[in-house]
């Protein structure tokens, strides 16, 4: 699975995708074996309530997977009973294709990160009286100081 993260980045340009493995805190053998053999981060789902699994049921058993979008939206889930085969990869790629490039409010340069670069571009747009929907933080149909203020508060 960790190789797939590199594949997503190197072959498809999905840099802002992270794969997180979720273990169970009550299975020591799994934890130690996983840590020895994987370079994915392993997050402990804590026995015996298993809160991470609980929120993604029924896609929460061993070899199942949930995909969470930019703002915490559950955008996909799949059982990987046959491993990460082509069907599973195509499913994930489809979900990413549908969700990865969606416009992030304020992300004017489209790098999926809100930072000073976006702020500079918005200022340029305001000075040039150019409208850009991604920069219209309060969705009032125009770019102005209020949009800068909202973006700044997110960045800071």
């Amino acid at each position, binding site marked *: 699975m960790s190789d797939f993260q590199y594949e997503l980045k190197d072959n498809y340009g999905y840099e802002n995708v992270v794969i997180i493995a979720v273990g169970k805190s*009550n299975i020591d053998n799994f934890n130690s074996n996983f840590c020895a053999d994987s370079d994915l981060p392993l997050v402990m789902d804590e026995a015996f309530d298993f809160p991470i699994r609980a929120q*993604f049921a029924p896609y929460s058993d061993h070899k199942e*997977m949930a995909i969470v979008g930019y703002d915490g939206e559950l955008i996909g889930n799949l059982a990987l009973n046959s491993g990460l085969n082509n069907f599973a990869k195509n499913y994930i790629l489809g979900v990413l294709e549908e969700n990865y490039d969606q416009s992030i409010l304020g992300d004017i340069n489209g790098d999926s990160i809100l930072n000073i670069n976006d702020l500079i571009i918005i200022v340029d747009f305001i000075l040039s009286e150019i409208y850009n929907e991604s920069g219209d933080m309060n969705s009032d149909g125009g770019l102005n100081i209020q949009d800068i203020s909202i973006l700044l508060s997110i960045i800071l």
Partner: protein
Amino acid sequence: MLLISILLFSFSISQNYCPTDNSFNNRSIYNVGDTLSIEDQNIMFPVCNGSGEYETGDSFSFSDLNGNTNDGQYKISIISMNATW
């Protein structure tokens, strides 16, 4: 014999990798299209194997990946459930 079994079971439970905080009752269940509540996104979970942006001993929360709550770094996360090896 029963007492020894109970003691052994208790000992095995106490040997977990990470300390647990069993305060997660009445959790929401999400379907595709639902957004995790801010409260659920902010719950911290122990990282027992560090990699990438996480080191062993760090805490993970879904809000780490939400650009609205982490200074604008938006990430899509693939959460892989694992239970055996």
